[in-house]
């Protein structure tokens, strides 16, 4: 069983929901990322989403755009991201790591090489923002061969037919983008989210993570009431942006925020 599936099933058996924070690899410096990942886990993360920086992050708002710019100032590449995951795995063998990014860096690396090296590094799944399942046949077979999960997005605009199709193509979990817009742009409406998640779950077994617009403990808790996982990005990245020069502060503030979400979700 994949590490992702295992974690999600265990949580489910305990009646708990997954907390899935996101940070961009290499932000603000490549040397700091592994420690930040460990901090996320200590604070209660069940899965870590690690962003692969890209020069043209079309689906992201200014917060994550700037995170990419900071990471790219240090030329953080996919290979560097693999090194980070390897180093993270030296002391954490349980927590699944999902890479999130855009397609071109994978295309240039080569899909098979990407999948093999990701698996070797200890990555568990990949979520490529600009790769809908219709175009994914160049990547997914290699992910499958290497026991990596393929996570696809569902949006508020997604029709019933597509929901089924996307769930069938996904493994691990599906990522429900809770608002129309870019990352960090708006706050979600929990009632709308509840309706859409119910619509997804009506015909599909796969766990549903919800992201975009979750910015504090309250919104994390209310989303966790209706979904299997809560994905949190821009608020965490904002802490990194604010304290770029101070590693200790970044880690302590992230720990405070993420633990508050964990407590609220488990309460």
């Amino acid at each position: 069983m994949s590490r992702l599936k295992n974690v999600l099933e265990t949580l489910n058996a305990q009646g708990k929901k997954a907390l899935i924070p996101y940070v961009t690899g290499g932000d603000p410096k490549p040397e700091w990322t592994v420690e930040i990942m460990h901090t996320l886990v200590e604070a209660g993360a069940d899965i870590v989403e690690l962003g692969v920086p890209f020069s043209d992050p079309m689906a992201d708002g200014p917060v994550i755009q700037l995170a990419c710019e900071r990471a790219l100032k240090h030329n953080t590449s996919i290979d560097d991201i693999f090194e980070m995951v390897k180093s993270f795995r030296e002391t954490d063998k349980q927590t699944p790591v999902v890479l999130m990014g855009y397609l071109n860096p994978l295309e240039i690396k080569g899909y098979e090489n990407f999948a093999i090296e990701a698996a070797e590094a200890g990555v568990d799944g990949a979520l490529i923002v600009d790769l809908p399942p219709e175009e994914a046949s160049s990547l997914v077979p290699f992910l499958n061969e290497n026991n990596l999960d393929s996570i696809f997005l569902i949006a508020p605009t997604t029709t019933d037919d597509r929901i089924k199709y996307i769930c069938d193509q996904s493994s691990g979990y599906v990522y429900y983008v809770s608002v129309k817009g870019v990352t960090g742009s708006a706050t979600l409406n929990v009632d709308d989210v509840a309706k859409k998640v119910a619509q997804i779950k009506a015909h599909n077994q796969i766990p549903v993570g919800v992201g975009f617009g979750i910015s504090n403990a309250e919104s994390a808790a209310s989303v966790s009431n209706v979904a299997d996982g809560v994905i949190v990005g821009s608020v965490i990245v904002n802490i990194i942006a604010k304290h770029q020069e101070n590693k200790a502060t970044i880690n302590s503030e992230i720990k405070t925020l993420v633990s508050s979400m964990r407590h609220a979700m488990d309460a």
Partner: protein
Amino acid sequence: MGAKTNKRITEELLNQLPDDKGHFGPYGGRFVSETLMPSLLELEEKYLSLKDDPTFRKEFDKDMADYVGRPSPLYFAERLTSEVGGAKIYLKREDLNHTGAHKVNNTIGQALLAKYLGKPRVIAETGAGQHGVATATVAARLNLKCKIFMGIEDIRRQTLNVYRMKLLGAEVEAVTSGTQTLKDAMNEALRDWVTNVDDTFYIIGTVAGPHPYPQLVRDFQSIIGREARAQCLEKEGRLPDALVACVGGGSNAIGLFYPFILDEEVEMYGVEAGGHGVETGKHAAPLCAGKPGVLHGNRTYLMSDESGQIQGTHSISAGLDYPGVGPEHSWLKDMERAEYVSVTDDEALAAFRRLTLVEGIMPALESSHAIAYGIKKAATMRKDQIMIINLSGRGDKDIHTVADIDGIKV
């Protein structure tokens, strides 16, 4: 070239492209985040049902005639031809269109689609400002809300067009992210679209972007080639030997080329922006110097570095300053049906001055790239041969840039 035989493009093959997922061979497709997929599928469905619909076609043709002023002339550049001393040079006068470039052919088509889809708001990215002006123009006429995204670097280079858009009632948003040019304007337009997808139609300005854009922009722009083909047959009694067009995203080029693709004897040259020279790395010539990758919704030749980050581009011409290119051009390159070359900033500037002095026609700096290569190529051809250069736009918008280089304040 032995490989050429199995790269032959038959009518059957051409009619199958793009396929139902928007592919031209390995290129094209639909690489966008899920939020946009349903809109793209809806647009595709609507477009396919309308494109041969007599009412839709009639509306489009009427606007082309009465609003744009088509057909645009095919002008024999007699003095330039005799100076160059080679092939007869004809200019397809897209500069004479309303708003001064080929861009309006496409914006009229897409604005009609917006109307049929019932979208009250349109957005567009622009580099040189020509597509922004053409979009603002049709938006004014159809009473649509309009927002144009433009890199702040291009706003500086194209002040006149920025003011034109504002006079036309459009809001112009200065894009300050990334390299602050066309690709970043497109990123920002995509971000707006994903946020306002319910009421907004994205009018893409070239044959790039996700399917069905490369197809529908090509179809709207193909009026250029259909006219040129008929005009050449009428004036010369035969087809031309060579076609030349500049390639930014590639819409004016595909518009000229497409109706000639099956005419194997007609050579096609797409001219990319060589900037300071392709060998310097400071250019915008993905077909000459890039490799396949994925950006802005399609797979195509692209300028990206060894770790897959998109590279900064350079061109004197804002409309060519883009790291990608329409996917159908990538396919035509691989099929060896069209040849892609580049000319430098300096060569384009010299052509700008030469055409102005010799023919009294001031070309856009984008089109000047086509003129520069056309002159070079024509000189190597026989006098009984015929070349058509696509004069994609007029140069008024570039007078500031040229004056700056001359050290003159206008």
